[in-house]
């Protein structure tokens, strides 16, 4: 029990430090010993973070990009997962095998050609350049197919006998039953893309288009030895949505990790 508590404290410590230091005046940021609980919290650091620095822009960009990616993945993966699980068409085994194979490919292998493609399409330095390549949800298709495979076919067959079209069987029956895997996929996709740094660094140039992680890192360079409190306030603000979503949807995070391991 003691070991666990010490471990938990050590793990949470850096974040706790970031929160408490963000509430101190810049001059006292590095005072030692560190005051873990700020005696006079400087809440104005947070409003300053929005005034002095384009934090609101970074947040908006992250929300738009991540939101579009999550929506895109949900739509395409649910449809294709359903198709591979419940519909018969020629070559589906081979096509699914290809999708499965691409799941294993590391991001760094495709980044240069994707960059060149984005450039060729004239989409450099646009938020769309972050969204489009991310809609290719190989893992999402895999996940949704797994879930659809476990659903009884009789529901759909009965509906077909009653004259329902393929699309109606999907939209009226199976899609409605798929809330849990969709929630898992949404949560995992959010977690993967909200905190992204590598692709935004490569695809974006104008700071007004930066997403949060990129924006915060760029701030650090700009401020140098300047306002640590403001940078930390930004880091804490970036963390808040993730913590809220985690609090609300914990089981989907856990299910997502476990589902991925059943390959």
């Amino acid at each position, binding site marked *: 029990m003691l*070991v*666990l508590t010490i471990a*938990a404290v050590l*793990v949470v410590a*850096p*974040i706790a*430090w*970031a929160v408490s230091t963000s509430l101190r005046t810049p001059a006292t*940021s*590095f005072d*030692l010993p*560190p005051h873990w609980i700020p005696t006079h919290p400087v809440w104005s650091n947070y409003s300053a973070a929005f005034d002095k620095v384009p934090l609101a822009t970074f947040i908006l960009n992250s929300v738009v990009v991540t939101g579009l990616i999550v929506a895109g993945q949900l739509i*395409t*993966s649910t*449809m294709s997962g359903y*198709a591979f699980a419940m*519909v*018969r*068409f*020629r070559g589906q085994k081979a*096509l699914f095998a290809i*999708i499965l194979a*691409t799941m*294993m*490919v*590391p991001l*760094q*292998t495709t*980044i*240069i*050609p994707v960059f*060149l*493609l984005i450039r060729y399409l004239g989409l450099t330095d646009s938020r769309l350049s972050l969204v*489009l*390549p991310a*809609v*290719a*949800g*190989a893992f999402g298709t895999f996940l949704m197919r797994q879930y659809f495979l476990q659903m009884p076919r009789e529901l759909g067959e009965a509906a077909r006998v009653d004259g329902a079209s*393929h*699309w109606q069987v999907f939209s009226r029956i199976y899609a409605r039953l798929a809330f849990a895997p969709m929630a898992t996929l949404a949560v995992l996709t959010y977690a993967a893309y909200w*905190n*992204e*740094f*590598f692709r935004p*660094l*490569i695809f974006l140039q104008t700071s007004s288009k930066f997403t*949060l*992680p990129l924006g*915060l*890192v760029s701030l*650090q360079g700009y401020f140098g030895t300047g306002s640590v409190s403001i*940078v930390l306030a930004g*880091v804490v603000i970036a*963390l808040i949505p993730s913590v809220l979503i*985690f609090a609300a949807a914990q089981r989907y995070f856990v299910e997502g*990790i*476990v589902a991925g*391991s059943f*390959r």
Partner: protein
Amino acid sequence: MSTVTQVRAPHTSGARTTPGSGRRRAARREAAFGYAMASLSLIAVFVFTAGPIVASFVLALFKWDIISSPEFVGLRNFQTLVHDQTVTKSLAVTLGLAVAIVALQVGLGLGLALLVAQRTSKVARTIFRTAFFLPLLASAASISIVMSYLFDQHFGVINYYLTMLHLPAVSWLSSTGGATATIVLVAVWQQLGFTFILFVAALGAVPPDILEAAKVDGATPARLFWRIKLPLISPSVLFASVVGLINAMQLFDQPYVMTKGGPGDATYTTVLVVYQTAFQNLQFGYASAISVLLFVVLLLITAVQFTVSRKWVFYS
């Protein structure tokens, strides 16, 4: 003379001419529906993943700086690669970092999961799960900013507490060993929650009657672990190592933000090399060759892991 009367199956629409064509048409309609449903994903995968993989291999055969036209150089990029010390050193550095990170991640995650499995209180379990999962919610890049403050040699909190415990202050980011250790610690700190949750779930799936029976037979906790728990969760251990290694071999955010590959090239990971070669030196062909090399290395490492796993992974 016999009259053969043909019996036709009753049909509801007038278009069918032979029995079975209705079924074929239905099958075609179903197939069309299937293709349509899967089309968005398939197009996206082919355009943005499968295509680029092939393109990456092709691009590696060229020399291109984006400004002038690409020049075909065949395998020359790879010949240069093999002798390029920056690249070979980065592979060694990256592999070293990755092995250390995964070993700690899996070991600590498993250890903590075992300890938590003994706690019967649901409240305690939720608290610990939340605590260990918290780092995963932060972005590696912004957390690296925080860590570079904490690991600062003179003003950092970590050295402060070390000296309080009468231990020597470590020059974390300014020495080769220190920088390597920092990167490893930061990466492990963040990924711990992932292995922790994975192993908690795996341990939870171990049937309690087996454990009970073993305890009745007088098995010590160590025996319980090595002979029963570990074999039963070995598929998860394999998964954690394979995925962990693939991710760790692509380390970029932490060295980029904290050390920029330094001091010297002590933390100059291969993806960092690819990034600089392509996007700062504008050598897209050569960078592609490096990324192809890394891809092949990753495939080999994964293949080795799977082959070795046959000896120790137990599938019930």
